């Protein structure tokens, strides 16, 4: 282990070699004495106790990186416990951000790990890239905390961290010193530790901090002392970097900026993009109202919170007494002529299942958002998985098909949500929109779409009583008419009992039931004619190997295929947005490859569907650790097969 720059006592720094001066265009006043390694991209992981504000720290770093023009992807990873006992490994919360020129995943192995206590180091050090930088708050490495984290000996005093560079700072003490003037309690003062750390890291990566200072002042507007102390800590961390010489082995990074399309950008999480997409979709459908019925559940609750703040756009949110009522109220709203939306995660979707069957049977529009998490049962509520695909496609009693679509990235949630509204209203059907815990919380920069480019698919409510039949179908879409109760002359009855294919009256006629079952299936099947043909995302449409993915595996699958292609391998990438029905050329496309590899965060759901639908020898690459794929896991798997 190289012991670098133990910064204690009055000696503020240890100069250990030659520093290289590098210009830092974003901060002209900076001294920039740190050696800077130029990198295409860098991944930093902030880790600490769940009460240490790591999610917030990561989010603010994300904002600054985005404002500076970096492409980025984030991976918030937090425990299910709100405040697990302080200092324990199960209370560790982490936030990883990968930023730079061309980024599509949150990064395989972080280059930098900020560990604010021993437990954070214990949980995260194994993931760090060999030679990466560990930033430690020595103030927390007490005997008690070391033992709580499960360290028999102090890792700062043995070879544990030998493969890494180490920057040891008493961040706790420095934070206390920085905010001393505000007369905060010891506890309150230490709560500014994350901002001190953020200040230092922003400096290390040549980022500004003004947006964060502004954000702090806004957030704590009612607690001016707290606001001032946090801003002071942020400044102090940044100033520390500027004024203190770092050890030579600790390099800073000059990170490539993204070579991006001109336009207006913002960062967006999957949750925000989904909420806005629902609104944009309802506008495109020319509806008056959106009614979200929801019940709190991790990781879907933020969608309820986001939409609850958007009332002025015609959104009503209803926090129901349970998941069932949430779905039923949404269906009731659709029946009454609004866009019914319900959102949950796997266990909640399971509870909504019977209601979804009713929406299928009565042919009412509904958008169902499933933020998947690791299951079965309660599973790992805060960890991501893609294991609800079977539930979405098959999980109902009776023959009960519904369209299933999935978002690939946080920003893609916007387009997919609009598409969900289009399919639901055009085909009078519930639509399942699959996201996952990773997409819901992860952020990326987003080139804002031009509002004028919003598609238009206005709903034509039936108002003409002439020859009205509740289940007479549109000859092309096979959709039945949507009638708002209150429309004169169109009063009619619908329900879950099988109904006559025209009048909608209860019908026990066996032939009618068979016709209706087929009509419901044909309607959903027919959507294949109304969606784009499947294309490869990268690579030719025929070849040796194709990687087929869906949902949030998009980033790592794309990067893996890109890297292998750069190395001359014959690999293509297909990413599926439409999971039911599949695009109508998908079977033909897959048949053009000798090998089909399907990476999924489940034990093999899409792969089973592809094999079943197209009789292709598709092979699964499965991961259920609650964490997204690393690019290397996919490249390794492909390489292994290419070498066979």
């Amino acid at each position, binding site marked *: 282990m190289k012991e670098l720059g133990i910064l204690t006592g009055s000696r503020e720094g240890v100069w250990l070699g030659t520093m290289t001066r590098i210009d830092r265009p974003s901060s002209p006043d900076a001294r920039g004495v740190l050696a800077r390694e130029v990198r295409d991209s860098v991944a930093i992981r902030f880790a600490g106790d769940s009460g240490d504000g790591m999610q917030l720290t990561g989010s603010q770093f994300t904002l600054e990186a*985005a404002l500076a023009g970096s492409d980025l992807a984030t991976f918030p990873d937090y425990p299910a416990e709100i405040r697990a006992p302080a200092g324990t490994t199960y209370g560790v919360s982490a936030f990883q951000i990968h930023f730079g020129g061309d980024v599509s995943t949150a990064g395989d192995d972080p280059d930098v790990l900020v560990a604010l206590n021993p437990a954070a180091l214990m949980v995260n050090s194994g993931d760090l890239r060999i030679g990466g930088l560990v930033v430690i708050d020595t103030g927390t490495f007490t005997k008690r905390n070391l033992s709580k984290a499960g360290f028999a000996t102090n890792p700062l005093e043995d070879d544990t961290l030998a493969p890494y560079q180490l920057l040891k700072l008493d961040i706790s003490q420095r934070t206390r010193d920085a905010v001393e003037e505000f007369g905060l309690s010891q506890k309150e003062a230490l709560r500014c530790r994350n901002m001190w750390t953020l200040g230092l890291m922003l400096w290390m990566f040549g980022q500004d901090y003004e947006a964060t200072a502004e954000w702090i002042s806004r957030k704590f507007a009612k607690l001016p002392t707290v606001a001032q102390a946090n801003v002071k800590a942020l400044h102090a961390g940044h100033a520390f970097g500027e004024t203190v010489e770092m050890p030579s082995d600790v390099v800073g990074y000059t990170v490539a900026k993204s070579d991006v399309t*001109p336009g207006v950008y913002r960062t967006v999480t999957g949750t925000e993009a989904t909420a806005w997409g629902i609104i944009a979709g309802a506008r495109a459908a*020319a509806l008056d109202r959106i009614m979200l019925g929801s019940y709190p559940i991790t990781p879907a609750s933020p969608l309820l919170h986001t939409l609850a703040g958007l009332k002025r756009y*015609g959104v009503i949110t*209803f926090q129901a007494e349970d998941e069932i009522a949430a779905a039923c109220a949404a269906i009731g709203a659709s029946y009454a002529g609004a866009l019914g939306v319900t959102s949950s995660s796997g266990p909640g979707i399971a509870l909504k299942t019977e209601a979804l069957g*009713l929406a299928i049977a009565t042919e009412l529009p509904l958008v169902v958002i499933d933020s998947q998490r690791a299951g079965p049962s309660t599973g790992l509520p805060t960890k991501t998985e893609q294991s609800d695909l079977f539930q979405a496609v098959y999980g109902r009693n009776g023959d009960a098909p519904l369209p299933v679509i999935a978002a690939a990235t946080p920003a893609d949630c916007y387009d997919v949500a609009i598409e969900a509204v289009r399919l639901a209203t055009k085909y009078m059907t519930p639509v399942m929109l699959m996201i996952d815990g990773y997409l819901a919380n992860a952020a990326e920069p987003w080139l*804002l779409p031009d509002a004028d480019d919003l598609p238009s698919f206005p709903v034509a409510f039936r108002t003409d009583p002439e020859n009205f039949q509740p289940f007479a179908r549109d000859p092309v879409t096979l959709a039945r008419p949507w009638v708002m109760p*209150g*429309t004169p002359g169109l*009063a009619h009855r619908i329900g879950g009992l099988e109904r006559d294919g025209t009048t909608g009256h209860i019908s026990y006629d066996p032939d009618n039931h068979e016709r209706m079952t087929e009509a419901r299936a044909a309607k959903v099947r027919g959507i294949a004619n109304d969606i784009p043909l499947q294309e490869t995302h990268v690579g030719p449409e025929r070849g040796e190997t194709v990687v087929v993915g869906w949902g949030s595996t998009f980033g790592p699958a794309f990067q893996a295929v890109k890297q292998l292609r750069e190395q001359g391998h014959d690999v293509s990438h297909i990413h599926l947005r439409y999971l039911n029905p599949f695009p109508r050329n998908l079977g033909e496309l897959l048949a053009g490859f000798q090998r089909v590899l399907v990476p999924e965060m489940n034990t093999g759901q899409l792969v089973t569907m592809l094999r079943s639908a197209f009789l292709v020898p598709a092979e699964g690459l499965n991961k259920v650790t609650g964490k997204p794929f690393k690019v290397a896991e996919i490249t390794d798997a492909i390489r292994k097969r290419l070498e066979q």
Partner: protein
Amino acid sequence: MITATTTPAQLKPKDFASDQDVRWCPGCGDYAILKAVQRALAEIGKSPDETVFVSGIGCAARFPYYVTTYGFHTIHGRAPAFATGMKLANPGLDVWVITGDGDGLSIGGNHMLHTLRRNVDLQILLFNNEIYGLTKGQYSPTSKPGTRSPSTPEGSLETPVLPAAFALGAGARFVARSIDTMQPHLVEVLTRAQANRGASFVEIYQNCLVFNDGAHSSFTDKAIASDTQLLLEHGKPLVYGANHTRGLRLKQGSLAFEAVTIGEHGVSTADLVVHDEANLMLATMLAHLRPPEFPVAIGVLFHNPHSSYERAVHDRAAAAGAKPVAQADIGGLLRGGGRTWEVAG
């Protein structure tokens, strides 16, 4: 929202009778309730096009098919949740929920609780026959202890729920009772329930001829009805009995009723408790009265109006400047609430 503009003058009960064959068992109490509802609807005078009947599962749940209004026969126990969604989407609709003791208090008990406490503007008619009819006679949550049924061959062991007491406990603002065979009374109660802007809970004692005949006979049999039914009237003393000589007064030194005879032991009408529909304690005590010691309280037990949930939701949306989604400024939405930056071309 579209609302009907043509209300035919002088609607008649038959204007609310659909062309569908009614398929309840001959002699079922549901027929009489259907008739009373159609009469009430005619009296209320709202167009069938502005009215929705929502039901769950059970014998009573077929109801929507038999009226000419909009109707939605949903899933077991969940009708109040569907109805809540309808009112949130279109508060102008007049929405009636038809449920039973199993649908509304067993599988759907949770939704009943929350719909009542939220005070969604609905009329909730709970047909209480103390049995599961559609599944052929199992005991229900309102069955009397000891009820023999296919699932309780030695008799049921559970303490039944008292629907009106449950509704009061849940915070309902309008709680009433009537009986399938009491036509004019039921019509009047339903009309009052509809006039209340909030969740109106009406328990209707209904006879299931096939599986639980006579479940309510201890107070509905004609011969004893006047001595076992207390017909409530706001502002009037609690009087019952064939000659209006029986009454309820408070026991000295206790919060409990005692049944007394006017004119005996110096009891006069002035000693009796006067019904006050806005008094929750009184309503709760009335809800628990059972024969033989006491008569069953029939009529409006409680009415203490409060603004309805969907009204409050829409008021708040209006305060937030809500506009129809169709007019939403998507550009503003996407730029709002966060930092944006421009990359120059």
